[in-house]
């Protein structure tokens, strides 16, 4: 029987962890019970991007977008929607911007301003079915390159497209390919860097899980261009779903002779293997990555020689990031001029951002370069929840910096972000509001880099550790003004003298918060208060007049510091209080404050 309906559900890691696999099983069961199974196709796709609303289910042909679906809702969806044609109103997604119910997928403002190139198939096709990828012009670019273009022309197209590396550096991809192609070594390698390590960035995972074939196709194109016959995908073992789907995709591509010997009868051979990493951040650095593939400890080495000259096992190697590769087939399908026309003059195409932190629409989005930060955060991201005030946005993860309100109208591209003292990085974007302490944020990122430093060079191993010590001291309330100067000069020293990108960028979060939020640091060391009310030693919790006397905070306090009777304002005994914040989390009416303006009067009498 032919299908009259297709139900797509998100199978990305985000939705999988909120039971989308069980949802699929339940659909299967419910539809079978109702005798509808033959009429409906169930498709598990990659990430839709709107992770905040997960698990997400889309019903075609009417494009109904269901959010926060649970296993218990499936029976109702099947009976009401699939059988009787009445969409289940209460599950239909609401637009986070204006709270309106949205009839279908196409109406969501989250997608309206986006342009999806790298994520073109994510959430749209079944990543486990090569036919669906082929239906969306998959492997056509590879076929075109192999039968119609010479390797040099392939490189020339890439150079003309202006595509720059999406892993963070922003190096022109065409130029990189050209370097690797110039070597005469008969053995060369193509590596896909899928060691996505920035906390809060997950675009590469989304591509690998949602559209693995696009990466395989692009690697084969790259192999043809530079003269390589073997590719490796270096993926972290913490991405089990991505690894599984990649291996499945490689198997299917071999079956269809789209990988292997004599692809498209052109005489070109290319094959790909997946190599697993243990999840070390430093292995995202290309020389450390290659050392890890070779079986050594993942540590960077001096460059030059660059990988294009002497890479994996001493042979010329081209390393590109997942998102870069995901853009490659489109350049050959639509032409370099089409690609070049998108974005800004120096940064063409689009960029995927992983939006997180204090933002309404946590998730993945893809916008043309040149879109402003304000559009991304407020129009697509839906702004800050709970009526809080925007404070800063941190781009580029632990290597990036903070950008403040006054720079929000800057068009995003590689060069503009660097000019602002941050960087594109892999595209993580963490939004912070008035409740975030910037000293604490800087400490969080530095804590991460201290952990991840490989220890090979002294500035990174020792310097970042000492910087963290100073930050801890400031957060404890023992800091001095002198510490701020030491922190700054130490940061600049680590930046200038470290061996690889990890150390060279690790001080960025500290230096940029010191630059933009110096008054917060000063408040910590001179006034001994934390203006955002985060650092425990420098704040106090008080109950404001908003208190409704529900006793919830009392029950949640681990040390019994809160007293009061039902329906009357409670009180915190500051001598007993350990400043854990449990009461603040428990309060249903936001009556507990740690803001200095609220507690100062009480504490100082």
């Amino acid at each position, binding site marked *: 029987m032919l299908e*009259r309906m297709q139900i797509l559900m998100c199978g990305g890691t985000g939705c999988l962890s909120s039971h989308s696999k069980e949802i699929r099983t339940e659909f299967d069961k419910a539809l079978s019970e109702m005798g509808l199974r033959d009429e409906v196709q169930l498709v598990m796709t990659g990430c839709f991007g709107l992770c905040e609303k997960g698990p997400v289910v889309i019903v075609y042909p009417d494009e109904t977008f269901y959010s926060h679906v649970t296993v218990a809702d499936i029976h109702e969806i099947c009976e009401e929607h699939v059988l009787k044609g009445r969409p289940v109103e209460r599950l239909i997604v609401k637009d986070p911007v204006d709270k309106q119910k949205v009839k279908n997928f196409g109406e969501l403002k989250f997608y309206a301003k986006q342009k999806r190139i790298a994520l073109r198939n994510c959430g749209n096709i079944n990543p486990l079915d090569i036919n669906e990828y082929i*239906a969306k012009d998959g492997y056509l670019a590879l076929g075109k390159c192999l039968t119609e273009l010479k390797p040099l022309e392939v490189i020339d197209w890439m150079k003309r497209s202006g595509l720059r590396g999406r892993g963070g550096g922003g190096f022109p991809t065409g130029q990189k390919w050209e370097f690797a192609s110039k070597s005469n070594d008969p053995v060369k390698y193509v590596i896909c860097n899928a060691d996505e390590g920035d906390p809060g960035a997950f675009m590469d995972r989304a591509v690998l899980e949602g559209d693995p074939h696009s990466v395989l196709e692009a690697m084969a194109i790259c192999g043809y261009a530079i003269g390589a016959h073997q590719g490796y995908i270096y993926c972290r073992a913490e991405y089990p779903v991505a690894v599984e789907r990649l291996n499945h995709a490689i198997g299917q591509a071999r079956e269809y002779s789209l990988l292997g010997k004599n692809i498209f009868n052109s005489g070109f051979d290319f094959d790909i293997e997946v190599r697993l990493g243990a999840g070390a951040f430093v292995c995202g650095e290309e020389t450390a990555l290659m050392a890890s593939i070779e079986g050594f400890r993942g540590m960077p080495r001096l460059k030059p020689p660059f990988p294009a000259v002497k890479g994996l096992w001493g042979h010329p190697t081209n390393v590109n990031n997942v998102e870069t590769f995901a853009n490659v087939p489109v350049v050959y399908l639509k032409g370099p001029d089409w690609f070049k026309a998108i974005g800004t003059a120096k940064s063409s195409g689009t960029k995927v951002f992983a939006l997180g932190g204090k933002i309404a629409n946590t998730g993945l989005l893809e916008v043309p370069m040149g879109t402003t930060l304000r559009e991304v955060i407020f129009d697509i991201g839906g702004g800050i929840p709970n009526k809080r005030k925007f404070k800063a946005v941190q781009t580029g993860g632990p290597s990036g910096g903070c950008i403040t309100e006054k720079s929000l109208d800057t068009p995003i591209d590689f060069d503009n972000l660097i000019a602002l003292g941050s960087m594109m990085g892999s595209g993580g974007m963490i939004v912070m509001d008035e409740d975030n302490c910037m000293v604490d944020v800087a400490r969080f990122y530095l804590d991460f880099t201290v952990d991840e430093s490989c220890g090979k060079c002294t500035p990174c191993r020792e310097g970042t550790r000492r910087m963290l010590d100073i930050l801890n001291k400031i957060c404890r309330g023992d800091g001095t003004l002198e510490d701020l100067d030491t922190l700054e000069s130490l940061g600049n020293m680590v930046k200038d003298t470290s061996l690889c990108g990890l150390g060279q960028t690790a001080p960025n979060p500290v230096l940029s918060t010191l630059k933009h939020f110096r008054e917060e640091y000063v408040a910590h060391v001179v006034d001994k208060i934390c203006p955002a009310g985060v650092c425990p030693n420098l704040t106090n919790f008080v109950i404001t007049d908003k208190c409704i006397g529900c006793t919830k905070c009392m029950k949640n306090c681990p040390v019994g510091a809160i007293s009061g009777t039902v329906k009357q304002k409670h009180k915190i005994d500051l001598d007993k209080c350990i400043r854990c914040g449990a009461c603040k989390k428990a309060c249903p009416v936001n009556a507990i404050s740690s803001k200095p303006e609220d507690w100062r009067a009480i504490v100082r009498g």
Partner: protein
Amino acid sequence: MKSLEDLKKLRDQSLKNMQMRYQVGGTRIQVGMGTCGIAAGARPVLNKFVEEINEHELKNIVITQVGCMGECAFEPIVEIVDQDGTSSIYCKVTERMVNEIVEEHLVNHKRLDRYLLSSVKR
């Protein structure tokens, strides 16, 4: 797979199966699937539409289901909204009629007046 032609053939064939996800605009066929519609046999009618449209390789058509349209005595009811917005409501539709409606209305663009709700009621 050995040539670009093979690939394109497979692409067109696979795309047909996914057409539903990329349909924008076009003609809408809405089958009334309230309890009344289902009891009167709307489901086989709906499936017949899917089958026939696929057989005739008609593009730009969305087949969807709607709730009860209010004329329960005349179910199964099928409304066809053409691209220009004209609506034709067919009533008491049977599987045999689907064949005819597809060929006349959708292929030849000729409305089958005798099956319309407006003529049957009169």
